[in-house]
């Protein structure tokens, strides 16, 4: 048992100078059993390949894997307190932001092993990973900035001021970074290489979540306070349409064939399924309470239900909820990994 505190002190993020320990600072709060799971490797997040989703529980400080068709989520593995943002690198590394603690944690998805912790200034929230996995883009919620960091060392390579309360960050294949500026009612468009601002696209009230169409010709923006979805043409960078969703849309995803849009409506406890072509409502599916992040893997969509602490599984063929899998307290962010990467 003595190994656990020792490991924690090693993993602990460096404290700010002169700051005493407070309830908000890092401490070895991991239940010993959970900590041991990753120490021994006895309960990996994943045992086999294939597509999967990973869900981060902010209140519990854990991440869990959900396999398609599984009757239960995988074990909840402690990654550090308060994980909010979640992104996956091409090698199967998960990156989680801890806004209250100024850190980013790198986790090996296959095993759930914490690889390293990066100290990040401010309140890191939204996160995206470069296609080659060497760089991270991290939004600072409080400061209204986006930084580009070296994924290995956490070294800041560039930083730029953007709109207020940067929420979701999404990279496209053309090297552009889209940022949902929740407090500025806009989507900022940055050149990911130079980290300079190319455009600002006005959207609805309080944009939070973003998703690109598979062809990347459209960017979908979920506006929490105006209860709608803005569709942006990514070549002209102009809003094409605004369509109503349910109340407080907090998540958006496109189906792999690009024909369906799925929007999680936090206050309605539902997922709206829209036809991506004519933007009409195809179905309204009841899910858990306060749904937020939504991700698609294979033939299913997965929805993180923050209040009810579970993940709704939606069959994309029938547009029905087929399962509701309990996870640890506070699930918000969810990410799909198309197929398992080699170790």
């Amino acid at each position: 048992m003595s190994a656990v505190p020792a490991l924690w002190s090693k993993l602990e993020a460096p404290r700010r100078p002169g700051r005493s320990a407070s309830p908000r600072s890092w401490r070895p709060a991991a239940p010993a059993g959970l900590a041991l799971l990753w120490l021994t490797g006895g309960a990996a997040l994943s045992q086999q390949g294939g597509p999967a989703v990973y869900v981060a529980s902010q209140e519990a400080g854990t991440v869990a894997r959900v396999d398609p068709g599984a009757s239960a989520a995988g074990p909840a593995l402690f990654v550090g307190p308060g994980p909010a943002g979640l992104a996956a690198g091409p090698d199967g590394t998960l990156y989680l932001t801890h806004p209250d603690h100024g850190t980013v944690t790198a986790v090996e998805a296959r095993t759930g092993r914490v690889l390293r912790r990066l100290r990040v200034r401010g309140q890191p929230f939204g996160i995206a990973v470069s296609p080659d996995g060497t760089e991270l883009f991290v939004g600072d919620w409080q400061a209204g900035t986006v930084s580009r960091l070296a994924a290995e060392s956490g070294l800041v390579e560039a930083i730029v001021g953007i709109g207020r309360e940067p929420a979701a960050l999404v990279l496209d294949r053309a090297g552009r970074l889209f940022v949902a500026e929740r407090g500025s009612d806009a989507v900022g468009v940055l050149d990911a290489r130079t980290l300079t601002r190319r455009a600002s696209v006005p959207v609805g009230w309080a944009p939070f979540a973003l998703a690109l169409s598979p062809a990347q010709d459209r960017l979908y923006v979920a506006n929490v306070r105006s209860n709608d979805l803005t569709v942006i043409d990514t070549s002209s960078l102009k809003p094409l349409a605004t369509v109503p969703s349910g109340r407080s849309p907090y998540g958006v995803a496109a189906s792999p064939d690009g024909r369906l849009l799925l929007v999680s409506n936090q206050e309605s406890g539902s997922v709206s399924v829209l036809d991506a072509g004519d933007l009409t409502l195809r179905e309204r599916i009841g899910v858990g309470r306060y749904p937020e992040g939504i991700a698609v893997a294979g033939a299913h969509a997965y929805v993180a239900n923050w209040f009810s602490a579970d993940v709704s599984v939606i069959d994309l063929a029938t547009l029905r909820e087929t399962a509701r899998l309990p996870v640890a307290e506070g699930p918000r962010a969810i990410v799909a990994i198309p197929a398992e990467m080699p170790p």
Partner: protein
Amino acid sequence: MRPTLPTLLLALAATAALAHGPTPQKIDQSITIAASPEAVWDMLGPFDRIADWHPDVARSEGSGGNQEGATRRVTLRAGGTLAEGLDEWKPEARTYSYRMSDPDLTALPVSSYSATITVTPEGGGAKVAWIGRFYRGDTGNEPAEALSDEAGKAAMNRYFADGLRGLKAKVEGVATR
């Protein structure tokens, strides 16, 4: 010298406008009431009538009735005013949802919240669930104790619990009269 709470509140008042932090907190309370769901909803339902049943509320002034977008200003006995907007009101399901319009840290030390209150049948009586989500009073990473997640949780839980107890007392009193 440590800044006093009023000083902190004044300093924050200029910047606290509907700040959403990165870390939401949950409130989840319920109570059973020995009365029909209809009787409970009759007391609970009118959005601008919260002063009729919530013991912490001195008065409530509404505008817009029970329509989506209606507002109410809820003045607390302990001081401070909650400005709230109605998001949804469904009498057939005996539920309504609302959110904070403007923060008042002297009323509740939180920067924003949304909540839903619902009446369902339970045994021969009714169950009232009052759930919500809020962000601490200072959404930065160095909040004063009075504006922390813990302070927000304590205040919101107390406000919800007081309200449910008051509702129960009011309805059961009426029902047995």
